[in-house]
C-alpha cells in the first residue's frame, strides 16, 4: 500500500511540477485523441442514424458487425494500418507511418465502432414521433437530425466519453503506427508502456494518474456544461 500511496503523491507532484517533457506527451495524447473524436463523430452520427431509423435488408447484420468491431484489439488495428502504410504497403507513398496523423487515423478506426454502437442505441430509443414532429413543423432533414441529436444528448455525451476513454487509453495502435518516438509521437500511454518495459512501475502508474486527473477535469467541465441536470423522461 505504501508504495501505491507514494505513487499517488508522485503523480500529483508530476502534474504540478510542470515538467515540460510531461506536458509535451500530454499534449500529443490529447491532440491526437481529440482530433480523432472530432473527425469520427459526424460520420458516426450519420451511420448510427441510418442504422436506427432506416429499415434496410441486412440491417441487423450491419449492427452485429459494428458490435463485433468493438472487440478488435487495438494492436491489430495498428498492425493492419502498419502494413497498409508501410513502405512496401499499398499506401506507402503517403509516408504517414510514425506520424501523429497516422495515429489519428488509427484512433478514428478504434473510436468509430463504439461511437456508432452507442449512438445507435440512444438514437433508437428516441420516440418515433420526434422525427415526424420536427419534419412536420418545417424542419429540414438536417435540422430534424440535429433535433434528434439534441433529444439524445445524454446518450451522445456518454458515447463520446466512452469513445474518448477508449482511444486516449489505448496503446496498441499508437505504439505500432506512431512508433513511440520521443518528442514526436510519444503519448501518455506509450510512455507508460515504456516505463513498464523498464520495470519502472511507479512511474508508469504516476503517468496513468496524470491521465486520469486530466480526464476527470474534462468530465467535470462537461458535467458543469450540461448543467448537472437530469433528463425529463415522461413522454
Amino acid at each position, binding site marked *: 500500500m505504501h508504495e501505491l500511496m507514494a505513487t499517488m503523491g508522485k503523480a500529483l507532484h508530476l502534474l504540478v511540477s510542470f515538467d515540460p517533457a510531461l506536458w509535451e506527451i500530454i499534449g500529443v495524447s490529447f491532440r491526437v485523441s481529440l482530433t480523432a473524436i472530432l473527425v469520427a463523430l459526424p460520420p458516426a452520427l450519420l451511420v448510427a442514424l441510418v442504422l436506427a431509423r432506416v429499415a434496410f435488408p441486412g440491417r441487423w447484420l450491419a449492427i452485429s458487425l459494428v458490435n463485433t468491431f468493438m472487440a478488435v484489439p487495438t494492436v491489430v488495428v495498428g498492425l493492419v494500418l502498419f502494413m497498409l502504410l508501410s513502405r512496401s504497403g499499398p499506401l506507402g507513398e503517403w509516408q504517414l507511418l510514425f506520424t501523429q496523423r497516422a495515429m489519428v487515423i488509427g484512433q478514428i478506426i478504434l473510436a468509430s465502432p463504439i461511437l456508432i454502437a452507442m449512438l445507435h442505441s440512444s438514437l433508437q430509443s428516441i420516440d418515433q*414521433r420526434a422525427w415526424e414532429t420536427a419534419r412536420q413543423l418545417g424542419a429540414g432533414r438536417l435540422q430534424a437530425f440535429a433535433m434528434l441529436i439534441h433529444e439524445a444528448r445524454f446518450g451522445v455525451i456518454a458515447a463520446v466519453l466512452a469513445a474518448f476513454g477508449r482511444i486516449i487509453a489505448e496503446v496498441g495502435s499508437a505504439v505500432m503506427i506512431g512508433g513511440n518516438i520521443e518528442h514526436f509521437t510519444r503519448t501518455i500511454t506509450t510512455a507508460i508502456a515504456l516505463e513498464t518495459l523498464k520495470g519502472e512501475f511507479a512511474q508508469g502508474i504516476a503517468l496513468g494518474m496524470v491521465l486520469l486527473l486530466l480526464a476527470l477535469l474534462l468530465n467535470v467541465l462537461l458535467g458543469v456544461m450540461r448543467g448537472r441536470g437530469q433528463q425529463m423522461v415522461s413522454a
Partner: protein
Amino acid sequence: MLEVSRLSHGFGRRPPLWEIPHLRWDGRSLVHLRGDNGSGKTTLLRLLAGLDTPRRGTIRWTLDDGAPAAPPRFGDLLYLHQQPYLFDTSVAGNLRHVARWQGWRGDDARSRIASMLARCGLADHARQHARSLSGGERMRLALARAWLLSPRVLLLDEPTASLDRQAIDDITALILSLRETGCAIVLSAHQQSVLTERCDAEWHLERGGLQVGDMQAGIAEPRPLGADS
C-alpha cells in the same frame, strides 16, 4: 383539394381496417372524423399526412392550383399526433425550435412566440420544462406549435380529449379563424363539444367503410350523442 381512391390499409396479416373506394373533399368544410376506438381514425389521418404508405390505393392533394400530388411537403400539411411529442426543452424552447425552422429571427420570432404563448394560456409556463406540463397544457403547447406555422392543411387527432371547457372554446375560435384564411381542417374527436358542433361535415368510420355526411345541410341524420345526450 383531396382525392382518395381505392384506399385501404391494415396491419400484419389482419384484414384491412377499412376500404375507401372513393373520397373527394374540397377542403372548405370543417370535417369531424368519427369512429370507435380502433376503427382506424389515426391510421387514416397518418396516411393522409403521408407519414405512412398505404397498402393499396392513392391519395392526391391539390394545393394552390398545383397538379394533384402525393401528400404535400411537411410544413404545408400538418398532422398533430393524438399524444403529441414535446421536445425535451422548455415550453418556449419548443416554439423557438419551430421559429428557427421557419427561419424567423430576433424580435420577430420573439414576439410571435410570446403572443402565441399568451393565446394558448401558457405565458406563465414559458420557462417550465415542456415535459412537466399537465395533460391539457401539453395539448395546448402542441396546438400552439402548430398554429405558429399557418399550414394549408391541418389534421388534428383528438385535440380536445384532455382540454377543459375554456380551452375548447379558445381553440374553437382559433380553428374557425384559421379556416377563414383558407386552411383545410380535419379533426377527430370522441366527445361532442362546441368544436364538433361547429363542424359542417362528418366522416364516419364504421364497419370498414367511410360514411360521409354533410351536417350543415342536414344530410347527416341526427345521431344519439353519446355521453351528452
